[in-house]
């Protein structure tokens, strides 16, 4: 794994909010074509990590690199154009636009495609994520499940190289989770690095090749799903949290 060049790399990233440390000198590497799960108790710094990768938050120390080049000084839009797509844990659809228009924005700006190409990209993502029947509905009228799908779809429409998924499986039924895992696998096969933060651990174990466990902003364990979830320290930080694995 270390032999391959890292597509996305975090080097000694630290972030504190007052007295709470959400990232404590974290160093992580992600390569193209791998799906990595990130688990950890609430407040472990998972969403903060995504915010620092996508550019919504600045780390206090450390560096974030794409293809070995620092992106710290780049704004979120530029990072998205470089290939970093993030979904939000609480969906943030463009409510007064249709689902199709939501994807068009992402394709044109994040994906930087031409006008007719944008139509094709958006239609393709609609098909892939099963949102085609809702294409012309205003996003504001979607239920939570469809909103989560739209988050994923909008991320995909930017034609990402790194896809950051923030709890997209929460509230989904088992068949829906299986569908989602299939989509993620298809995306991975296009040489995308998928980084997936999830509380629904059984969704992760079937989709990822590697799991990272964070707690208190530190890396507790890293490795294949079985060994990480069997790790006593991981079990301890999850104590009282339903792992359902």
């Amino acid at each position, binding site marked *: 794994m270390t032999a391959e060049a890292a597509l996305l790399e975090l080097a000694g990233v630290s972030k504190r909010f007052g007295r709470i440390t959400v990232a404590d000198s974290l160093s992580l590497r992600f390569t193209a074509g791998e799906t990595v799960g990130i688990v950890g108790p609430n407040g472990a710094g998972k969403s903060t990590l995504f915010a620092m990768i996508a550019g919504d938050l600045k780390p206090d120390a450390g560096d974030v690199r794409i293809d070995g080049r620092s992106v710290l000084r780049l*704004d979120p839009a530029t990072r998205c*154009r470089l290939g970093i797509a*993030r979904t*939000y844990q609480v969906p943030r659809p463009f409510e007064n636009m249709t689902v199709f228009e939501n994807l068009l924005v992402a394709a044109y700006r994040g994906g930087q495609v031409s006008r007719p190409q944008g139509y094709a990209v958006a239609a393709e993502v609609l098909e892939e994520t099963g949102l085609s029947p809702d294409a012309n509905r205003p996003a504001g009228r979607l239920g939570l499940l469809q909103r989560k799908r739209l988050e994923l779809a909008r991320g995909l429409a930017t034609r990402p190289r790194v896809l950051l998924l923030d709890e997209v499986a929460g509230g989904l039924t088992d068949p829906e989770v299986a569908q989602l895992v299939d989509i993620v696998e298809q995306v991975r096969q296009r040489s995308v690095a998928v980084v997936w933060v999830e509380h629904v651990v059984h969704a992760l174990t079937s989709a990822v090749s590697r799991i990272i466990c964070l707690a208190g902003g530190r890396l507790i364990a890293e490795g294949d799903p079985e060994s990480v979830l069997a790790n006593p320290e991981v079990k301890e930080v999850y104590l009282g949290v339903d792992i359902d694995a």
Partner: protein
Amino acid sequence: MIAAVRVTRSRRSALWGLIGAAVVVVLLATLPYVVYADVTDLLVNAFILLVLASMWNLLAGYCGLISVGQQAYVGIGAYTVLVLAQHGINPYLAIPFAVVVAAAIAVPVSFLVFRLRAEYFAIGTWVVAEVFFLVLIRFRSLGGGTGTGLPGLALVDPAFRQALTYWSALGVAAAALLTTYLLLSSRMGLDLTAIRDNEMAARSSGVRVTWAKRVVYVVSAAGCGAGGALLIISQLNVLASAIFSVGWSAKMIFIALIGGVGSIEGPIIGTAVYTVIQQTLAQFGAWYLILLGSVAVLIAMYLPRGIWGVVTGRLHIQVFPVGYWLHR
């Protein structure tokens, strides 16, 4: 794989709306031949308000930028025409220059006011307008604080002048609406709607938020500059304290609010309603203002999307559709 993707700009054809709008403009253009000048004068004022309200709507309704300082560009537009007229340039031909000057000044100002957020932005734009006012009244040649007349039109036949002013105002209003339509139906229109709905998500979907806002700010300033140019031409004089009055922003807000913020059609409806209220009740003095204020408050409370918002919500009508409809 998807073989062919067919996309139109609305569920129904956008063509009819544009043809209808063109017919209305042509009909309006014939008015100086069929009605008295008091009617066209009234419409000149309405067109100016329509331009200003459309520009304010572009800022607030699509970028979430609440400005109470657009009178800065109204004033700059008017004084550009004055300065050029004093140097022998025909005021009507000076209108495009007013647009350019207002836009050119808006570029550096945007870097200043964009450092401010929300209510600070609103106050900041007002302060900028006051600064322009205070600077302009220093110039004796421009009438200082007591105002001055617009030279260059004394020898023109009044009836012809009034018709010319009317056509200019109609042309500027049509151009303002067309610009708004073209801007919103371009890909930047998608950016703007996305920004309005969720700025953070827009940013992380690759939208250059600040750039899009700057473009709209400059376009809005240009439109207000044209509005100011029309004002001085229709009034034949200019008073700094009147042209730089925050009252212009109040009118823009009122019209956009009652018509419906965030749609092209809203300010048109708003202007019509405002003009009717003004014509029927202006003689009641203070009561007129109280009524205007009450209407604005009631609309803001019960019809947050304005009159057009109700119409389009019930009937699904769009005169200027800028959306994308995917056909399967």
